[in-house]
């Protein structure tokens, strides 16, 4: 099966938070995890690596995906990425995602937060059926992160 081009963008979002990057940095880990209510059975394997189950809506059903995540390229308080490997539907669905967060100091102590999720090497069938779902999920997660960060700032 032919794979999708490397680094297909799932979602991008930019927003301003009324707090400096240091504060956003301290909040963002907990905010990401609390914005994923279907995140269960989480195991922290090492300080930067975790495994979990993610109950996500796919084609109208709640499907349990296995998730392995690794925090990479950490440059506090300016940026970091999470590399995610997702697997579900009995191995039919496999995806490598990368979610990057960039925090930039704006005037008056505000922070511009830029979020971008990309998927790599998604096979043809999952791409055909699931890419739209994955995009919606990424967009709604970014929306939840934005809402929570703005509440807490």
């Amino acid at each position: 099966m032919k794979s999708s081009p490397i680094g297909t963008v799932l979602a991008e979002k930019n927003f301003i938070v009324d707090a400096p990057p240091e504060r956003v940095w301290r909040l963002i880990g907990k905010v990401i995890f609390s914005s994923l209510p279907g995140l269960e059975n989480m195991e922290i394997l090492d300080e930067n690596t975790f495994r979990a189950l993610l109950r996500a809506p796919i084609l109208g059903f709640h499907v349990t995906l296995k998730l392995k995540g690794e925090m990479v390229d950490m440059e506090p308080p300016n940026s970091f990425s999470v590399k995610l490997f997702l697997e579900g539907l009995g191995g039919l669905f496999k995806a490598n995602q990368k979610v990057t967060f960039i925090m930039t100091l704006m005037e008056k102590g505000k922070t511009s937060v830029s979020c971008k999720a990309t998927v790599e090497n998604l096979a043809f069938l999952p791409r055909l059926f699931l890419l739209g779902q994955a995009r919606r999920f990424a967009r709604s997660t970014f929306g939840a992160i934005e809402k929570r960060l703005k509440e807490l700032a």
Partner: protein
Amino acid sequence: MIVTVPEKWDLEYDVVVVGWGAAGTAAAVTAHDQGAKVVILEKMPDGGGNTRICGGNIIIPKGKEFIEYLDTLSFKTTEREIIETFVEYALKNGDWIREMGADVQVFRPLEVAYPTMIAGAGFPHVRGAETAVKYNIKGTPEEGKPSQRLWKFLSGLVTKRGIQVLTRTPARELIPNAQGEVIGVTAEKEGKAISIKARQAVILTCGGYENDPRMKWDYMPVKPLLFLGTPGNTGDGIRMAQKVGGDLWHMTRLSCLIGFKSPEFEAAFWVSFLSEGFIFADKYGQRFVNEAGIEIHEYYQELSHFDTEKMEFPRVPLWAIFDEQTRRRGALSRGTAGYNRDLYSWSLDNSAEITKGWILQGKTIAELASRISVEPKALEETISRYNRNCRAGRDEDFGRAKEDLRPLEPPLYAIQLWPALINTQGGPRRDKESRVLDPEGKPIPRLYAAGELGSIWGYLYQGACNIGEGLVFGRIAGKNAAAESPWS
């Protein structure tokens, strides 16, 4: 002091190291590399002690301002020159590890758990805090948790050098001569007493007293206090040092987390939460603290409140009350650290522990309250008030940060938690040369100590400093012991 020097020694070495953890390794390796014939006595079947089961981080400060930070934390319980010596050597901890053939990586934790494993200073508002940096031995999760990688590295140094280790060999007494010099050790091997001559010195690195109930009751500020670390730490080094005239210091100090205890297990399980949906309640169903704001090693500060009317510690044990999302998010005891880490695998959704009755559940607050023997009305009022605070985004009672607030909705769960030690800090008083001192401040000849046995952490504890300190004063003790002239 009655002096009985054996007429014949069973074993003879230059330097005898008692206890095999980080400090014992650093001491033994340093003494060996300076030409001394070294033996390590270890009472347990395997070495490692708390080193093998702790968080595995090592402090390597990034500047001398760390002296100011530690001086503030010590609250004048440790002489500044000792702190200065510590920092001077701790700055080189990374170099030492690299010289010994490993490498280090900066500890950058996922700050998602309660309590939070903090990357740097535990007390970030204190001057010099920005210089606190934690590292661990470089490696991947597949190569083990940080403390497993640390112990693999340290134990390898001993093995590689062929340093003799006598396991299941507890030291029982130090042997002084008529001049008060420590010249050997009486140990127990296969039920028999053996005398081991130390031609140059003895180094005590055998940990604290977290598994000595009487000492804990005497010295600890909160009672009872469970232990999370090795059952091997029973205060042996403290008694041995006292018998040869050693002074004691820092006996009331500790590194204290919270833990759950099942009678099936000797040690407690360290408990933390992967989601903000939890509170702590005392025996009467009352909140008493910002549960998300306790420094990870300092739980005793909050739990040691004694009610002089009721004549009890009302927060010991406490109940952690948590919601369904927290229950499902991940194991309450995650195997990060603690003696039980390799003995039991806590279920990821906590369901097995509900079945065992370790975690209690209630479909309503009243049902949960009755299961934990708390007045239902009191718990209902506590949770109702907490939920109001969450919805308002402001904890008016204890100042819990708004990012840590989420209303608790049934079904709810409860687990009984106790103050639980990773380690104590007290033991024989020592100087910056790692020499054990008598009550007048004079060194006891040929006796050294390092590590958590009489550690230099006399008041607040900065994470990763116990391993850092073990490596520093282990090296100093090893160097000085190997430089002693043989006594015969």
